[in-house]
């Protein structure tokens, strides 16, 4: 094993026709770290993940996982990766337990070898009671949890989660989160992509924000908020023609989206001042002061227009 990083990606590039899906992306992930990829749809998150897991060839660059080069020794890399895909690709011809056994067999793990772990993994995702069930009878949340358990069948050193909670209800999300928490505490290196800021804030030690195929910002959730928008946000809504009046003479960052204005004051005094000003502006219906969140960072950095 070389280097102190579990994953080292250097200068990854990939184009589809004339679209640069991933454009010179470099990063590293420490052993036991949980790194989150944030970005709008089409930012290049999934493509990056597919390249580093050997599922898509790269146009340029290199990735090593646990010291193994992905394009030269893909089998060695995949043997230590657990991949939980965005799309459900469970084997509908087999039951819950059989899905686990089959997937393990692709890694060369025999049924007997898995036996002890099978119960542990299925209990871990609360599917032990459903072990004999047909895949088609599972709910969306159960399928997600099974995909997660399946990706752990080979006891991976690195877990890759592509939007692990997209489409789940709040109960199911919290369940998946607590499973991921346990894995983190167990020392598994985790790489995850997500659209949900609360998820990123809760689970990730460090975040990479991607857009247009590039990494546009990087840091711990707290540092990213601090650097990009500061502590506070003053938000006001009302008559769109009157809103810019609040920002008159204000030297900090602000932006307006139709009937809403977001102001990012740098200090307590400025919060007070902006609140007063907003409250006394004609046509303003409501004024709100709240702590800045990752969502503010995300929207600040990647804009508010729809991408697809």
């Amino acid at each position, binding site marked *: 094993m070389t280097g102190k990083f579990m994953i080292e990606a250097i200068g990854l590039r990939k184009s*589809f026709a004339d679209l640069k899906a991933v454009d010179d992306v470099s990063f590293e992930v420490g052993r036991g770290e949980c790194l989150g990829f944030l970005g709008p749809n089409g930012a290049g998150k999934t493509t990056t993940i597919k390249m580093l*897991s050997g*599922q*898509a*060839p790269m146009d340029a660059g290199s990735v090593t996982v646990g010291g193994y*080069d992905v*394009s*030269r*020794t*893909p*089998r060695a890399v*995949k*043997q230590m*990766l657990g*991949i939980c*895909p965005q*799309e*459900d*690709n*469970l*084997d*509908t*011809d*087999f039951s819950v337990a*059989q899905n686990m056994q*089959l*997937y393990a*067999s*692709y*890694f*060369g793990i025999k049924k007997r070898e898995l036996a002890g772990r099978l119960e542990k993994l299925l209990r871990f995702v609360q599917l032990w009671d459903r072990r004999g069930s047909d895949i088609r009878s599972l709910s969306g949340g159960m399928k997600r949890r099974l995909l997660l358990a399946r*990706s752990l069948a*080979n006891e991976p050193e690195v877990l890759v989660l592509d939007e692990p909670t997209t489409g789940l209800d709040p109960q199911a999300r919290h369940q998946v989160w607590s499973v991921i928490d346990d894995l983190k505490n167990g020392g598994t290196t985790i790489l995850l992509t997500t659209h949900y800021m609360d998820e990123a804030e809760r689970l990730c030690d460090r975040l990479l924000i991607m857009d247009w195929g590039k990494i546009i910002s990087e840091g711990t959730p707290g540092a990213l908020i601090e650097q990009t928008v500061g502590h506070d946000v003053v938000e006001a809504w009302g008559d769109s023609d009157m809103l810019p009046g609040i920002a008159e003479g204000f030297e900090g960052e602000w932006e307006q989206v139709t009937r809403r204005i977001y102001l990012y004051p740098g200090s307590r005094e400025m919060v007070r001042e902006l609140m007063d000003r907003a409250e006394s502006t004609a046509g303003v219906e409501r004024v709100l002061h709240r702590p800045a969140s990752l969502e503010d960072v995300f929207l600040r950095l990647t804009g508010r227009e729809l991408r697809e």
Partner: protein
Amino acid sequence: MNATVSRHMGATLSRLRLSAPSWYAWRVWRRNQKKCLQHWHTSVVPPLLEPILYLVAFGAGVGYLISGFEYGGEEVRYVTYIAPALVVIAAMYHSFFETTYSSFVRMYYQKIWDAMTATPLSLGDILVGEILWGATMGTMAGLIVLAIVVIFGLVELAAIWVIVLGVLITASLFSVIGLLFTAILPNIEAFNYPTFLFVFPMFLFGETFFPVSVLPDWVVNVASFTPLYNLMSVIRPAAYANVALTDLWRFVPWAIVIPPLIFAIHWFMARRLID
């Protein structure tokens, strides 16, 4: 091969989106086998019944109209004429359908290959595993029919190993041809083309139910380029135990064409699936 050379080879293959197949292919074969054994009767009963129906309809029915005819200088019964053809047809159909419709469903609808590529299995392993499985299904079907015609005493046993070898080659070849169509054709409806324009004409004109030589020369010329016609030209004499070892060369082209076809499948599949 030293480690550096093999690593450089790995990088080159990866750039070409190709991957060398390995013994891991059997893990793919095992998956399909497990699925098949869950409903083993569906893969055993039809190939068991089909030839019996054929034998009754063509052997007893059509055969009733034909008092017997001359083949290879001898007077033969019609039912013994078609018996070896039924064996080969079963091998052809069952392997071809396995790697067309069934493989396409696994690849496109069930996303089973998708899940496999996240594991140490390479695309090469998956394709070779599917081909081995298609060949297995074709061989099993062919051997079941062979057992039946043997029980009915319709083939001679002296050169039966030639028929078994013929079944293996037929099943392997059509398994590969089927997967090539799966690599190229855009959707499952398009399989109607090879099924009705390639396999079905061979079923009829591949020296199966009548000697093609009774038809105009151009038909014979076209037929002589098809695999079934050529395979039958060795297998039928074997069923009458009058095959010479030197006739076996006719198997050779259809066996050696298999590896380049597998390469072609890998090439097209990589471009279809990887990116």
